């Protein structure tokens, strides 16, 4: 099973599962811990992966949201994420995928231009978030946002679905592209 599909498993009652994909374990671990510290009505599960496809031997719940973490300081992290994208079924890209770029605060260490990740997110029609995961307060705020997004994607928020959220987020994205 080399491609992640969004609807191939039944959801668990009140459970929301997020998959964080990125090369640097330390960052993923910190983000996961911050997310679990949030108060949330749903039962959260965080899966961490360095690359896709995921090992098929494991029995895992349905994944509600995938976040691809790219470190702007490392071309290696971008390359690995790009390689993963082909292992994700297109149905995920209807609001259940998001890109997270970290490290933009330290401009001198950045070896990836911000436009590169912006273009990547635009190609995959998915939102792009910027956050310096190394900084505690920024990470906590981002964790809050991701938990809210996850709840929506898992269907735990009545009246709004993943696709709704995507179109809402896209509205704010499209104006800058017109200016360009």
């Amino acid at each position, binding site marked *: 099973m080399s491609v992640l599909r969004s609807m191939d498993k039944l959801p668990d009652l009140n459970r929301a599962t997020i998959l964080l994909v990125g090369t640097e*374990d*330390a960052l993923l671990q910190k983000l996961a811990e911050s997310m679990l510290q949030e108060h949330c009505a749903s039962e959260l599960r965080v899966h961490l992966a360095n*690359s896709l496809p995921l090992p098929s031997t494991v029995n895992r719940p349905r994944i509600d949201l995938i976040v691809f973490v790219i470190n702007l300081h490392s071309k290696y992290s971008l390359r690995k994420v790009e390689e993963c994208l082909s292992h994700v079924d297109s149905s995920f890209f209807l609001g259940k995928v998001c890109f997270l770029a970290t490290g933009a605060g330290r401009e001198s260490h950045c070896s990836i231009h911000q436009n590169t990740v912006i273009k990547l997110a635009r190609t995959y029609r998915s939102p792009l978030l910027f956050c310096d995961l190394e900084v505690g307060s920024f990470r906590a705020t981002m964790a809050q946002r991701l938990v809210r997004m996850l709840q929506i994607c898992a269907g735990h928020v009545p009246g709004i679905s993943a696709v709704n959220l995507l179109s809402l987020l896209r509205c704010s994205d499209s104006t800058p592209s017109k200016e360009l």
Partner: protein
Amino acid sequence: MDENVAEFIRRSILKIPLCEMKTILKAWNFLSEDQLQTINFRQRKEFLAQEVILMCEEKCARLDDMALLDIVCEDVDLFDMKWFQCSFKKILQRALRNVTVSFRVDGKNAVWIRIAWGTQYSQPNQYKPTFVVYYPQTPYAFISSCHLKSNVPLLHQALKVASKHHQIVQMDLRSRHLDSLKAIVFREYDQTFESHNSTVPLQEGNLGLDMNLDSNIIHENLEEKERIHRVTQETFGAHPQPQLEFAQYKLETKFKSGISGGILADRKEPLRCLIKFSSPHLLEALKSLAPAGIADAPLSPLLTCIANKKMNYFKIRDK
């Protein structure tokens, strides 16, 4: 005393050249100072041997003592510290009238040399000395940087002649830590200490991850992490790495392209690039690259061969 032991000792003594006889018997440390003083070292070897055998009989020499004498004889390059120091100093002083040379013998296996350089017309500059640490039992000497590059060939010449070697070669290995240089050159870093870390199976906290901290966090790629950990251990070992600050790679290559012609392809001079890695502890940093998810494991052999090849300055050319 056993007949065989006596015979062996007699034959050993006959094999020793007369000029080294006194030094070897002293190094053997079996006969006492007084006894050594009574021996006439100018007589014929057969009689000398007989004298020594008689003394050995009085002291009841045994198999172990005989074996020890054999070992001392084998150590042919008996290093003469005084001669080394004398000849080293003379060579430098003959070339540069003004030079200060001082020696300190550190234990039995190292001699520290301090050289303050002057010229024919000026006094030695005591504030910019060069230090050399020479290990006589080995063909290695460690030299600190010389502020006057023109003195370096002279220093090499002096070391070469005083240590009775034919050639001196400069290694491409530099660091600020003498202990680390020694560890690499004498391969001392490979000795694993008595620790439980050497053959431990996958455990919590071993990979630097708090895996059981929260059961709601699941790591998907455990197998891959284990593989990376294993490959890293195989390449770098479980022991702490010697401390180096830099690794430098000079690359010379020609531009290759499918399209023939073009400015770069026609260029006769090779293209030159320099890549320098610097870190307070370079080898530990390289070792942590793959586990931290910054590079693939296994790393490039150019990075992992540093300690093995005893080099951290490389010149890479097209074959």
